[in-house]
């Protein structure tokens, strides 16, 4: 298979890995599953963290998964220009790992919720993920989570410039209706709804595929993977337990 190399990190308890793989293939990636217990290989330009209940999520969602070797190697991928997407549980893991700020807490109103929602693209971010999604675009895709209420101690203002997708009808009490978040590089995307499930008109929507197609276009233009630099793992959190700054990367 041709196309940019993309790894889907499979944690014990992931259950959206097959859907993410399938959608990455559809978008043009050479995607493969990668076990979370090993650092990412050097030849990947994109890492996907799928939905699911990593390690059962019997404690805070994503907390255990954030310590896995594959997650610790994401820093290095981002430093050399790679792309990262965390969907649902994957978003929770990215936040727990400190790659994205804030926290994802229990839905308000409480409880697991599956629903088709409409998202609106709030601005043109310049992010490779949004190459095919200009400001004002409305995207339809499902949510399926119990801990998807986005919180930031600084409120919506602190993250508004990095929150490209907002819920039309906030389903979970997220601050400012934040549905997705970009890091300072624009290459790391955490998204609570499931774009990989909105990948085929037969399934009800192909809107989510546009994110992956944009990423594939950008990834195809990336220079070949650089040689490995040693990247020290940084403790992700500040003293409050919640990372608040938005990393700009290198």
């Amino acid at each position, binding site marked *: 298979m041709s196309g940019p190399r993309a790894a889907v990190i499979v944690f014990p308890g992931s259950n959206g890995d097959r859907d993410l793989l399938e959608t990455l293939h559809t978008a043009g990636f050479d995607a493969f599953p990668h076990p979370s217990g090993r650092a990412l290989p050097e030849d990947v330009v994109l890492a996907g963290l799928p939905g699911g209940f990593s390690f059962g999520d019997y404690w805070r969602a994503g907390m255990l998964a954030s310590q896995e070797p594959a997650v610790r190697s994401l820093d290095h991928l981002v430093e050399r220009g790679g792309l990262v997407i965390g969907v649902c549980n994957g978003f929770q893991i990215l936040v727990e790992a400190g790659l994205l700020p804030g926290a994802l807490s229990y839905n308000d109103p409480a409880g*697991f919720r599956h629903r088709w929602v409409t998202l609106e693209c709030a601005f043109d971010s310049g992010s490779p993920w949004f190459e095919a999604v200009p400001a004002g675009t409305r995207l339809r895709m*499902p949510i399926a989570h119990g801990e998807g209420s986005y919180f930031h101690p600084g409120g919506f203002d602190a993250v508004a410039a990095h929150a490209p997708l907002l819920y039309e009808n906030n389903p979970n009490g997220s601050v400012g209706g934040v549905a997705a978040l970009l890091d300072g590089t624009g290459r790391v995307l955490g998204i609570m709804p499931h774009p990989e499930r909105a*990948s085929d008109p037969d399934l009800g929507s192909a809107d989510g595929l546009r994110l992956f197609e944009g990423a594939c276009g950008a990834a195809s233009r990336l220079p070949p993977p650089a040689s490995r630099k040693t990247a020290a793992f940084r403790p992700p959190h500040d003293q409050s337990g919640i990372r608040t700054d938005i990393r700009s990367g290198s």
Partner: protein
Amino acid sequence: MTLSTENSARELGLAMGLTGVELDHIVAELGREPNRVELAVFVGMWSEHCSYKSTKALLATLPSSGPGVLAGPGAHAGTVDVGDGWAIAFKIESHNHPSAVEPYQGAATGVGGILRDVVAQGARPVAVMDALCFGDPASPRTRWLQDGVVGGIGGYGNSYGVPNIGGLTVYDTGYEGNPLVNALAAGLVRHDGMRTAAATGPGNAVLIVGATTGRDGILGAAFASEELGEHHEHTARRSHVQVGDPFMGKKLMEAMLSFDDGLVACQDLGACGIACATAEMAAAGGSGFDIDLDLVPQREAGMEPFEVLLSESQERFMLVVAAGRAEAALAHFRDHGVHAAVCGTVTDSGQMRVRHDGTIVVDVPAALVADGTPGQQWETGTLPGPRPYPDFPIPDDLGAVLVQLIAQPGISDHSRLYERYDQTVGNRTIRGPGQGEAAVQKLPGSTAGYAISLVGGGERCAVDPYLGIQALLGEAVRNLGCVGARAVAVSDGINAGSPSDPVEFARLAALIRGLGDGLRSLDLPVTGGNCSLYNESPAGAIPPTPMIGVVGTVGDIRRIPAVAMKTGEILLLAGSPPGEQGHAAYGRLLTGSSGPAPSVDLAADRRLAAFLVGQIAARRIRAAKDSGRGGLAVALAKLCIRGGVGAEVRGGEWGSRPDWALFGEGPGAAWIATRPEDAGALIADAAPEGVPVQQVGVVGGNRLTIGGIIDLAVGDLATAYAKEPA
């Protein structure tokens, strides 16, 4: 339970629930008295739950073969061809008693258990559906039960990663003391990937994989075969209820489905745990098992042999692996983070032989344990005659009746419940809960698919079990027709009272007789299912309650009707409005009684479904909905609500009792919305197929009007429909 040494085996056996006839049979077959561990094995394995001793003869009368059937009753899960080399493995299970005691874990482990059946068949789970019956929706106990049950079904399935694609919830005071929790699971398997329980090959290794074995759920099968007492009494039975671990279940599923090197046979460990799997796998293969309990990974020290044998700890499988491949198998499961241990060997002795601490504690013929009950004969009483049904005049305002009907719990919107279930994981769901008359999923890399209709309830079966179950069958076949699916096979979940009550046994027998006759007239096989008896509380038996799951094939998912109808489409009525019989929901609303016996016409349902499938394939149908609970009026109102659009239907079709015609739950009728240019061809095709179809109205506006009889704003209907069920 204690296995005290003071009583004789016979006294102990009687105290534990075996009958005198059964004990005599055991002694005669063994040529000796069973020891206490063996006795415990017989108590569990010969319980109604495991042995089907009361229903075996009845179930044997059901048709079970057909052109698409790859595995039928007796397999882990019935398996049918759905095209492209794929098959669907599917089955209904009940977890009624555990859910009454501990609703969250009872329901969660019910889902986990039925998913393991599908995995044991070699199939990757792709769907769960649920069929729930509760008492008064306003009672605090119902709310507690419903919240726990829905939470448990969602908690297990959401984490495991299998979508819930539909089901039903029924409220009836008949379930107040004994709620019903039935679940259907379906999985996809290649034709050549099916697995068997038949253990063969003396010298082959017996492995136990998955969770460790603990003291949970011991003799749960026997608990499931008793009547429930008062609530405060059965809370003491919590130790019989198992605890689910969907994380382990998911890991185990992945490990099981990726393992085939040297695999000879496998079975999930459910009711009666290791005892059941060893006896059934050996019996199925005509072999024997030597098991050493000391090799079974245990959760705690000091477990008695009977505890290890009968533990219903969740998330476990038993495997038979070719001699010489056991080490590789252990490594495979270790790589997947799953415990595995060799705990025995296949023999040619035909004996189930169990060692503990160096001593043989069980040595009995496997076939006797698995399949050797002398059977249980129950007295068949006389079914009560039809209940008097009060005559009543036509209500003045049928519109107001429609608004009331559509707000009835059981008819009204259940999307709040279904929101608690993941419906789309797996990228396969084409029509999920509330999006069609039946759930539809697609096959991998194909535009072909399959549909599943799950229907059920006891309202009409309480009036007439024989006709009631046939009315349900007809409804399932019509539902499939509305999504363009041709029915292939059925899984049934029968829930009934105590067979020791002659009237309850007569109801049970009538249900199964009705099912068999109905299946034969539809040319459909039953490929498996479940019978749950002893569903009684101090308030009495539940209404006899079948759940019917039917799988059908869909030629092209892109041709199935839209979720909703649209302005400008033509409304057609297929079939005839019902006459005077069978208006369960309407009759109950007005009189408190569910009305006379349901009217059934399976031939008409079959013709209607075949017609719909053909017209959908010809792309002539934009929306379709058959008449179900609450009749044609409720069906049309739901179509309007779903599309947020009105409809104008002419009068004159509804006879002298328009209430019966509009609210009656008669067979063979459906609404069809079509484009004006397609209406003529569609109607022309109908007559030769024996389906009366007439053009009766148009779609548009924001009111639902039916002749001069009903005139309602769709918004008002939607408000009534959205009323919370509890």
